[in-house]
């Protein structure tokens, strides 16, 4: 197990490096470059040239990557002219907001999806199951911006219950305390996640319910609900853990759209805005952070899977 871990960690580091290299190359090979975008149409060619030289955009690609990487090792992720901030502090500012949004959505989604999935598994192929499946698929199929918009119209305008924008404060404490403003953005992200998670739980529980150990327990006189809670759930939830790890990229994407609709300047929104203005340092920094998060997430998921499921052995 330890050997497996070490191997995976090394592989993960390699993957992260490769991600940076790929993104770096992609950005710098595309036509146009960042100079004109940052300096504007009225900049003279001398000003452009000065900018290019100052920021090393005239050096060979591999040298530029080396410089960037070297800075990275010293904790310097570069500087965004467009936003007049260091990339590291931008990320430090925005990332927690996105994480709060994602975590809340995941927690809410799990709290609803798992009981839902269990219910659907036990009452499979009944009307209730079909209806819930239908709703699951419905939310899954709705573009997230449409869902967000509908929620705002229904619960902010028609029924003025909730705020149409997410919490606006800078501090995490204040954000978490502003419950009313959190409802709609979290709901938008969670509803879509619930659809996926509940179906996963449903099929996972179903699979377990047909296993021998369940029949044995039932034959021994254990009550239905006890079986479910004590035995089945523990086993059924193992794959859900993996699912969490795999969902991270999708959640980032979903968060991006929710951030834009609900006026919540997190990291996803940052990426979109800076992609449009070719703010290379920010794009590289955010991609790196997301890659790290995804790789770590999937590693943790695999480890959790191995720890929880004694049948799985990693060589």
């Amino acid at each position, binding site marked *: 197990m330890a050997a497996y871990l070490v191997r995976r960690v090394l592989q993960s580091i390699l993957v992260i490096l490769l991600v940076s290299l790929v993104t770096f190359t992609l950005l710098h090979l595309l036509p146009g470059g960042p100079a*004109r*975008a940052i300096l504007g149409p*009225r*900049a003279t060619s001398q000003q452009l040239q000065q900018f290019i030289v100052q920021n090393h955009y005239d050096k060979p690609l591999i040298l530029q990557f080396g410089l960037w990487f070297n800075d990275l090792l010293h904790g310097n992720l570069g500087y965004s002219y467009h936003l*007049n901030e260091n990339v590291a502090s931008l990320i430090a500012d925005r990332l927690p907001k996105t994480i709060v949004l994602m975590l809340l959505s995941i927690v809410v989604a799990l709290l609803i999806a798992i009981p839902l999935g269990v219910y659907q598994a036990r009452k499979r192929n009944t009307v209730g199951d079909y209806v819930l499946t239908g709703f699951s698929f419905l939310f899954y199929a709705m573009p997230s911006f449409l869902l967000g918009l509908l929620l705002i119209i229904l619960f902010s305008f028609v029924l003025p219950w909730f705020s149409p*924008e997410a919490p606006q404060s*800078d501090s995490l404490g204040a954000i978490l305390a502003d419950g009313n403003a959190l409802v709609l953005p979290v709901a938008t992200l969670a509803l879509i996640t619930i659809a996926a998670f509940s179906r996963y739980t449903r099929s996972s529980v179903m699979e377990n319910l047909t296993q021998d150990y369940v029949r044995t327990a039932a034959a021994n006189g254990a009550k239905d609900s006890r079986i479910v809670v004590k035995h089945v759930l523990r086993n059924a939830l193992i794959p859900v853990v993996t699912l969490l790890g795999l969902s991270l990229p999708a959640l980032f994407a979903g968060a991006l759209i929710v951030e*834009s609709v609900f006026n919540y*300047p997190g990291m996803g*929104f940052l990426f979109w805005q800076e992609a449009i203005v070719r703010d290379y340092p920010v794009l590289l920094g955010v991609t790196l952070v997301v890659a790290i998060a995804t790789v770590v997430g999937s590693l943790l998921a695999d480890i959790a899977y191995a720890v929880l499921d004694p049948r799985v052995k990693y060589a």
Partner: protein
Amino acid sequence: MFNGRRWLVPVATLTVLGSLVAGCGSSNNAGGTTPQQGGTATWAELSGASPNWIFPFVDSAHNSVNSVTQFENLMYRPLYWFGNGNQPTINDSLSLAAEPIYQNNNTTVVMNLKPYVWSNGEKMTAQDVQFWMNMMFAEKANWAGYVPTEFPDNVKTVTVTSPTQITMTLDNTYSNTWFTGNELAQITPMPLAWDKTSDSAAPGSGGCSTDQNKCDAVYQYLYNKSKNLSTYQSEPLWQIVDGPWKLKTFDSDGNVTMVPNPTYSGPVKPKLAEFKELPFTSDTAEFNVLRGGNTINVGDIPITDLPQRSVTSSSPLPDHNPMPSTNYTYAPNYVWGWSYAPINYANPTYGPALKQLYFRQALQLTIDQKTDDQVAWRGYAVPMTGPIPTAPPNQFASQAEQGDGPYAFNIGRAKNLLTSHGWTMQNGTMTCTSAGSAPNQCGDGVPAGQALHLTLEYANGVKSVDQIVQQWKSDASQAGIDITINAQPFNTVISDTTSCGQKASTCGWQMALFGYETYGAVPTGDPFFLPGSAINYGSVNDPHLTDLTNKTLHDGSMTTFHQYVDYVAQQLPGALNTPDSYFVYAYSRNMGGVAPFNPLGVITPENWYFTK
């Protein structure tokens, strides 16, 4: 949803500003009219445009219009202020000096400063102006508004003739209006407390206010301070202001709070207790909050959320309340700029055709501005008939621009122009069947058999522009001109349009569209039409036009100016006019002093107040 229109900031707009003539309330104000002291007014920033630079000597990389007009100008006053109501004219009461006195055949300028003080007790003196000018001379390569041969190149000497008087000698005779409105407008006096190179140094120790050669170090010091966003609210340097406001809180997301500067020496002291600015991720997000009626006091209504304005309406505003909340009243916010589509004379394929006047006229005739205004801009736009906007009505717009202008939409006329110049409709596209330079032929350099398949590259993201462009394509095709529309991100369009270097091979673009070019106080054409100018995108080189343009810089008469405008309106040099839209702003019903808005984009919250 996506960013609103993009504003391209020209030279003089950086330091141009304006306000109401002091004391005038707005006739739109429906509430009571007794101004109250106190209250917090909240302004909605346009999405994606939060202030993030505080040092008034802005470089190109940090040149965002909102940092200047909605942030810096509130704290650090430019020497001359522009904007009276909705006119971009000089505002004497808000300027820091009396109107400049031109002598010696307009080659000497004398400026007498008013008694202003800085918030740290320093008096504002001519030295402060020299401080700025020295930095200009030393750091012009870093000045966002720098145009070679113009300011400060056209200034020979700057002398402090008394503590309250500064004299400049110029390298030529210039038009007073232009020199004051576009050149002197670039001056923002800086306090001697900024003239240093380290935190513990004494004010003035940097030497930049007396010696140009010392300015590099001082510039670097202040530049680096300004790069430190997180210190804006705490850094003592930035607390030294001469404007009506001081910064109270600032964060990197764009939330700004300002409080009145008690030592402001200007004529209108703020009545509000606090002025706030809020950032928004998108137009939709801003409107969702605006319509609630409680959070935002002054904000823009996105065009797609405005009701259709009827064609017969005499008011520029919506016919009925666009929002469920009744807490607001509305006012138009015009843009002092030129809305046009540059065309490329240097394009290897269609350059020769585009250089022909009749061809540009035909192209212009296929743009249905009236319908565009009515539908794409939902009624909140007027046709652009030349380089000077006609809304709001102003002295710079010439006769040729009045009414529908010389080229109102007419497909039949467009077709005739083409057929009478050697083009024939073949398979739905006009083809040159009579090549040559005679008056009834295609024109010099247009090859026989050339068919009109042009490409229009435009910046994506604004729905109304998508509509206009599609309609143009459709209308032009009826006249035999096949336009391929190509939407690209704004920065790609800019990059492509400015890449026409020495090589013809990089000059692939034919027609482009990426928004307005905003003007300084005086809407001269030097950036657009002088050969070699930075934004002479189309490579225009017309000696008569060059002459007319130069005349407007040196001769201040409105007749000369109108001659220039008439010529441009008729010749369509390197540009086709596109609809001129305006914003509709909502502001709280119980507020006064907000409207009319300054067309140069500056806001003056010291004029705002709540009423009983």
